[in-house]
């Protein structure tokens, strides 16, 4: 015989109560306004994240994306911000590099057509918004011919890196070779531009000038790099004493042209 009372709390009662409380909490949470979740306290504002739909990266997607980047490169090299600052003796080089991108576009069109795809004739919208437009605005603002060379070097390096990266995503081996041929030509253009900025065989290796500032190297690495291309453009900021650095990334899943 025990002296326990009816309201004694046993394990079963406790578990049941806990379950009821948890279920009630879930119901209450579900009844809450959905707008509340958008207003979570945070420092600063963040843009809403748009989820990428169900997509597959095919060879045609890579070729269409290459077209968008080639068109972007051509747009940059033929923009008045660039052409208005080019010296007469360099104008032919800049227009020649732009013509090479036009030639690549024709090549890409036939590669896409042969695979039953549709050519893409616009500059890559996401990459232009990320850095292309900003780079051109900085060149226009800085009004320096040196910026034109720097932007040209960065653009050609970016195109070469893109094709090298695309090799690792391309299914058809023969197409990998076609891509790297165009990448190699952009790579040559980058080396020529580097030599125009910092000429001579002494400029092949990375180095620094008398002030300790890194110089432009024609052969910065033994293997092709896939990292973002950094370029300093525009006027010197009087407050910081430095110029704006633009990071130019190769296209990725969110900037592919599907």
């Amino acid at each position, binding site marked *: 015989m025990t002296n326990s009372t009816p309201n004694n709390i046993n394990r079963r009662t406790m578990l049941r109560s806990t379950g009821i409380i948890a279920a009630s909490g879930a119901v209450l949470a579900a009844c809450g306004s959905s707008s509340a979740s958008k207003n979570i306290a945070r420092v600063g504002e963040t843009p809403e994240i748009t989820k990428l739909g169900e997509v597959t990266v095919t060879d045609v997607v890579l070729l269409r994306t290459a077209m968008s980047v080639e068109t972007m490169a051509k747009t940059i090299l033929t923009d008045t911000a660039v052409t208005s600052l080019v010296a007469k003796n360099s104008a032919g080089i800049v227009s020649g590099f732009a013509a090479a991108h036009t030639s690549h576009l024709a090549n890409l069109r036939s590669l896409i057509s042969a695979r039953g795809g549709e050519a893409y004739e616009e500059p890559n919208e996401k990459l232009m918004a990320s850095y292309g437009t900003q780079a051109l605005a900085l060149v226009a603002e800085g009004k320096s011919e040196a910026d034109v060379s720097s932007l040209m070097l960065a653009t050609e390096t970016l195109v070469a890196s893109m094709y090298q990266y695309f*090799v690792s995503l391309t299914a058809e081996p023969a197409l990998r070779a076609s891509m790297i041929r165009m990448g190699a030509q952009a*790579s040559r253009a980058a080396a020529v531009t580097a030599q125009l900025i910092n000429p001579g065989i002494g400029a092949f290796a990375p180095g620094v000038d008398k002030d300790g500032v890194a110089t432009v190297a024609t052969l910065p690495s033994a293997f092709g790099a896939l990292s973002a291309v950094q370029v300093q453009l525009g006027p010197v900021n009087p407050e910081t004493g430095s110029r704006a650095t633009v990071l130019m990334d190769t296209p990725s899943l969110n900037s592919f042209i599907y």
Partner: protein
Amino acid sequence: MDNHQVESPETSVTSRRRLLSALVAGGAFATAAPLLAGRASAAEGGPSFPTRDPQDNNALNNALAREARMVGTYRIAVAAVSADDDVAGLTLILDHHIAYVQAIKGYLGPDAKDAPETPLSSPSGSLKAMAAGLAQLEDDTATIHTDILAILSGMDAAKIIASIIIVEARHSAALNMISGTSPLVASGN
């Protein structure tokens, strides 16, 4: 009034065990879900390729043989110049080719064939004259590698060869500039 507490330990223990098991399983799933989702997204990024294919070994050994001969050629070129900048510039490219030999050998491992450093030419004379000849050899090597890339199945090998071609194109253009070729011609236009 007598109250008889009826204990049913077996039923109670089973319930607790089930509850704990359910909690543990739920926790494990919740922890793994983001990983599984991440993998699924990555898989949607593109088709999968074989990372290695033994059928590539012959083509890669050809690439290795060519690079070893480039090393032999640059050893002669470096010995033929005396100015500090010239030695440094040509040694840099020599080091790149040594790195390519090591990369391809490293990839092939025991399947790598002997690759003698037989020179492709004997560079001599002025730096300008040597640069023109070396630029041509770089172009030819990049073309050989591009043809090899077109038949490689293994993606790891394709990545190595692609990263070599991109820089050998730079070698060619840089040496053409040193030889006095016009910028547009040096860029391959």
